[in-house]
């Protein structure tokens, strides 16, 4: 089990580290667009669509990376005062809300992506570049984050039952 959890942690960490570098191509495309428009007087038709694609992937893959470090924004006025066991139980309740949301993104997102793939859906710009790979990111990203949250859930259950931190 420990090995399994480590593998999930590793996936979240490495997918995050790799995809975080998408920032720079995103910046480059936008800068190129402005230069093309004003210096060469030739605006591109693809730069904005490209940017939207890059950052759609960027945000969505990030979910698992944040869940790994457990740094989602919370209001911890009350939470901070509890002991580790109560905290773990609250985290387990939190998982239910997480799963309601991201589970829907996985399940309905898959259907959404599937319809898009079947129709080879393009975007609505004159360029008509494929849109379906981006829609596929919704279930993929959701799956990654669910894996990571399941790993966290397992550790929380351990803490809730034994009252001791989970050994790595």
């Amino acid at each position: 089990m420990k090995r399994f959890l480590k593998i999930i942690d590793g996936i979240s960490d490495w997918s995050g580290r790799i995809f975080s570098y998408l920032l720079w191509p995103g910046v480059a495309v936008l800068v190129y667009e402005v230069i093309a428009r004003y210096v060469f007087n030739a605006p591109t038709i693809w730069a904005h669509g490209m940017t939207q694609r890059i950052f759609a992937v960027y945000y969505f893959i990030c979910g698992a990376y944040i869940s790994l470090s457990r740094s989602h924004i919370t209001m911890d006025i009350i939470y901070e005062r509890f002991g580790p066991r109560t905290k773990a139980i609250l985290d387990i309740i939190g998982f239910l809300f997480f799963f309601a949301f991201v589970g829907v993104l996985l399940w309905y997102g898959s259907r959404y992506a599937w319809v898009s793939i079947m129709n080879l859906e393009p975007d609505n710009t004159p360029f008509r570049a494929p849109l379906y790979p981006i829609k596929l990111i919704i279930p993929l990203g959701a799956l990654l984050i669910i894996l990571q949250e399941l790993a966290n859930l397992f550790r929380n259950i351990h803490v809730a039952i034994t009252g001791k931190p989970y050994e790595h």
Partner: protein
Amino acid sequence: MSIELVTVLMFGGLIVCLLLGIPLAWCLGGVSVIVCLLLWGPNGLMLIVYNTFGCMWSIVLVAIPLFMSMGILLQRAGIAEALFETIHRWSGRLRGGIAMGVVVICVLFAAMTGVSAAATLTMGLIALPAMLKRGYGKSIALGSIAGPGTLGILIPPSIISILLAIVGNVSVGKLFMAGIGPGILLSGLFIAYIGIRGWINPQLCPSHPEKFTVKEKIVSLKTVILPFAIILAVLGSIFFGIATPTEAGSLGVAAVLITVAIHRRFTKKLIQETTYETFRITGLTMWIFYGAMCFSAVYARAGGAVFMSDLILGLGMNRWMILITMMGISFLLGMFVDPFAIIFILAPICFPIVKKLGFDPVWFGILFVINMQMGYVTPPFGYQLFYLKSVAPEGITTGDIYKSIFPFLGVLIIGMALIMIFPQIALWLPELMMKLAD
């Protein structure tokens, strides 16, 4: 289910979940899914996916990682140290000169980055020990960092303004431009306050004895050139309609990278840390945004926005009273709740009402942001106070920081009142921008 019940269920559920320490993103998303299921069954859930995709596909939101990375790069590249040296050389004999200089640096940082943390953390590390060493009173030294540090969310580019503009359905460019006048007004008021305190009570803000030659002073000015170039690249390109706010963000990142290279701070470590940190903070923001957009879409589809505005307009109160009440509620929430959460909970309700009352939504947006600024510095839960505490030298207690903030809070309230009475302080620039565009 009646709309009253939906309202109680959604907002009550959200607040209970938040208090339990469940991450804001999951509170918003989870509550939306549950209410969606209750109202429309499984077939209604596609709404959640559509709205999430809508956020992913938004080109406006791309500005967030861009302005975020600018702030992180600037903070880590040591630009603030260089600026502080300049301020130090120029402020010389002036009473409270360093504290006033800190206000100026906060403004420059605010105009280069989208958040308040960058200015507050770096000033807390550099300027605070320097001021304490020269005998500044704790209240002035701490307050003049925590208070003006909040200008980061008012002066464009600002992440809070981008989110507020999208939620409130106003133009990001206009809201950005509307932040400049009030930003200058508030920084002027901060400087005036420090000056007056120093004049009344000279021990609080001593002038410092070091003397610099004219040549040293002039040479030190070179540090100011690049920040001005960055500000011009970002705000100038938006103002003159050369670039959208998102494109301006990319120009800003490029300008900051060049600045960093000129300062010879361009290292692999800097890029790596900036990349990871930007990714993390952007992801946090975006996942909250997904949840929030689902939340307001579900509530709007259930008829909530109409219900709320009928309810409040039906009270028959004077429109100014309604406005001030809304400000009061957001201020009270700001004392306890994260500004992000306040925007997503209150703004979708407030903006339609404000429009119906015949107020300018851009102007209201600015008042809302100043309210968030106050939220950032009001005890017991103000981010600025925590940031400052995390970098403050030993011997500075949380109590010192709390006590120091109240006069600066007062300055913010005076500034807000002035902008309420004279909306043109905020609105002249966006109106000028629109005239230029025609």
